[in-house]
């Protein structure tokens, strides 16, 4: 499709609601006289219903129910949930459980980031319509991605019993401990993959990523010692430094008429969660090996270019492997894979770093441990306002005189930078353009 390059033309892009196993998305853009007059990104969030599904259910059921919220990041939902319930019941998981959960999370970051980079994002930057077409020209690149993803799935399976909607997690720990022989076998594979992950960091940094500097607020967890996954305080690059218990005093969810998903704002402003925000705020917490790989790219942090999210994911993928190797090296079979749990009437907060960013849970439980109320704030919803601001800026910066296909592709690329669940469909923008 080609249109005359007329930056003053009226542009009307409407994207119908599209199927989303992990969410539904739509995009509307109206532009006139070279400026975007109207832009809204719609996300319809099925996870909202889970808060109601949980009411009345017992505390033992929570990890398995919340795992069904997302097919890609079920571990994240389980981790925030068990953390919240354990806080409510004053349960202190053992060191072994803590390490096991970090390993499980490493697996999820690994599989999610590997899949996003290689199969969803790379075709944009290598000039292909999709990963299958790209694989014909870059088979080794795709094989690397599939191998890393498989490794992540196997790590999840080792602790979670299965890689999709794992069932191994329980409040207080895990239902069972992995066999030591499986630990050693997987550790060998992880060590063998470290070079691939380092190469991936170099590879992503060498891609022709667009230059698109923007102003935005980065938000993530920050831990005293480690790159944040399962714990820490919530911080921003504007001085926020709060306990997850104080989340609701600073962050606000609100409705927009065009979307059933809740938007989030921090002190009235949209903000970014996810890999680039985490890296901006925590690059000093990376392992020496990841820090060295990052340093070799020449990337200056904090970055204000959302296209650097691809590099951030590659760095985090490497970090997940390095961490998994370290934790598996120290692994020893536990006396018990879980701590005893005694329910009580209480409330608990859980906050962890899903692959796509901050995931905050709160549960009120009765004396028997049944859920009275639940609140779940997923990362994609938190990024919704930021994505709209980004689209508005990026498309105007890109140039509204570009033809519709170019605008559509750039819009998709901008959205994919966030790896939202709606990017389940890499070509989800069905564009209809009408002109006045």
């Amino acid at each position, binding site marked *: 499709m080609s249109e005359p390059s007329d930056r003053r033309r009226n542009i009307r892009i409407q994207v119908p609601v599209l199927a989303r196993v992990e969410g539904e998305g739509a995009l509307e853009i109206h532009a006139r006289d070279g400026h975007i007059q109207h832009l809204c990104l719609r996300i319809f969030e099925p996870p909202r219903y889970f808060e109601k599904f949980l009411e009345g259910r017992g505390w033992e059921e929570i990890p398995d129910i919340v795992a069904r919220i997302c097919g*890609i990041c079920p571990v994240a939902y389980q981790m925030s949930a068990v953390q919240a319930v354990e806080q409510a019941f004053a349960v202190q998981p053992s060191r072994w459980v803590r390490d096991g959960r970090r390993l499980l999370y490493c697996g999820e970051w690994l599989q999610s980031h590997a899949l996003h980079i290689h*199969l*969803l994002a790379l075709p944009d930057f290598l000039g292909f319509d*999709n990963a*299958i077409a790209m694989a014909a020209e870059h088979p080794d690149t795709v094989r690397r991605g599939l191998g890393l993803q498989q490794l992540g*799935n196997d790590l999840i399976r080792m602790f979670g019993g299965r890689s*999709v909607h794992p069932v191994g997690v329980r409040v207080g720990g895990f239902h069972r401990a992995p066999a030591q022989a499986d630990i050693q076998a997987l550790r060998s594979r992880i060590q063998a993959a470290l070079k691939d992950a380092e190469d991936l960091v170099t590879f992503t940094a060498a891609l022709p990523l667009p230059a698109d500097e923007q102003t935005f607020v980065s938000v993530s967890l920050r831990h005293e010692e480690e790159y944040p996954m399962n714990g820490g305080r919530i911080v921003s690059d504007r001085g926020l430094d709060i306990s997850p218990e104080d989340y609701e005093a600073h962050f606000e969810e609100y409705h927009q008429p065009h979307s059933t998903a809740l938007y989030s704002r921090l002190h009235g402003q949209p903000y970014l969660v996810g890999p680039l925000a985490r890296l901006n705020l925590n690059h000093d917490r990376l392992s020496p090996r990841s820090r060295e790989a990052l340093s070799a790219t020449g990337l200056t942090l904090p970055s204000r270019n959302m296209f650097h999210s691809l590099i951030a994911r590659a760095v985090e993928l490497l970090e997940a492997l390095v961490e998994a190797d370290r934790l598996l090296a120290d692994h020893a079979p536990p006396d018990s894979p879980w701590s005893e749990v005694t329910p009580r009437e209480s409330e608990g907060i859980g906050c962890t770093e899903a692959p796509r960013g901050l995931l905050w849970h709160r549960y009120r439980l009765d004396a028997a441990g049944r859920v009275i109320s639940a609140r779940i704030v997923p990362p994609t919803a938190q990024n919704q306002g930021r994505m709209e601001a980004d689209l508005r800026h990026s498309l105007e910066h890109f140039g509204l005189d570009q033809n519709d296909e170019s605008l559509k592709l750039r819009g998709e690329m901008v959205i994919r930078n966030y790896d939202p669940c709606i990017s*389940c469909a*890499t*070509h989800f923008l069905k564009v209809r353009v009408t002109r006045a």
Partner: protein
Amino acid sequence: MRVIGIGSPHGDDALGWEAARYLARLPGIADHLRIDCLDRPGTGLIQAISGETAVILLDAMEAGLPAGTVRRLSADELMAGVGAVSSHALGVAESLALARVLGVLPNAVHIIGIQAGLAAPLGKAPRGRALATVSMIVREITGLQDPLPAARPGNGGIG
């Protein structure tokens, strides 16, 4: 030859697994085939079939057919229209297409789909008939026979 049942524990999505387990109980077949089940393998299917020369994939399907209908498909038929990797969770068709591009698609890929019930799970009797039909198709593909002569079903329900 490897036989892989694909699915999940949920409802009729387990039909591929049930078919694999049914085959595994048939001595004349099970002794000559490697039969596994995979839980929503996504791209893991590529690894599972790499290095194989012939595979049979068993999976529940939604094809707008009467529930319990069994269809035999070729990889080409399944991959028809697959252009983009359109999901985080890659399906069987996309994974086979990717496997072909990567040069690891087995020479022979047979897909046996079982139409899942939509309004309600497939009942016991049609379920049994569907599994028997799957075993008959597997015999046709492999040339294997039960120790006892198998009842010869008609063509009803077989695509």
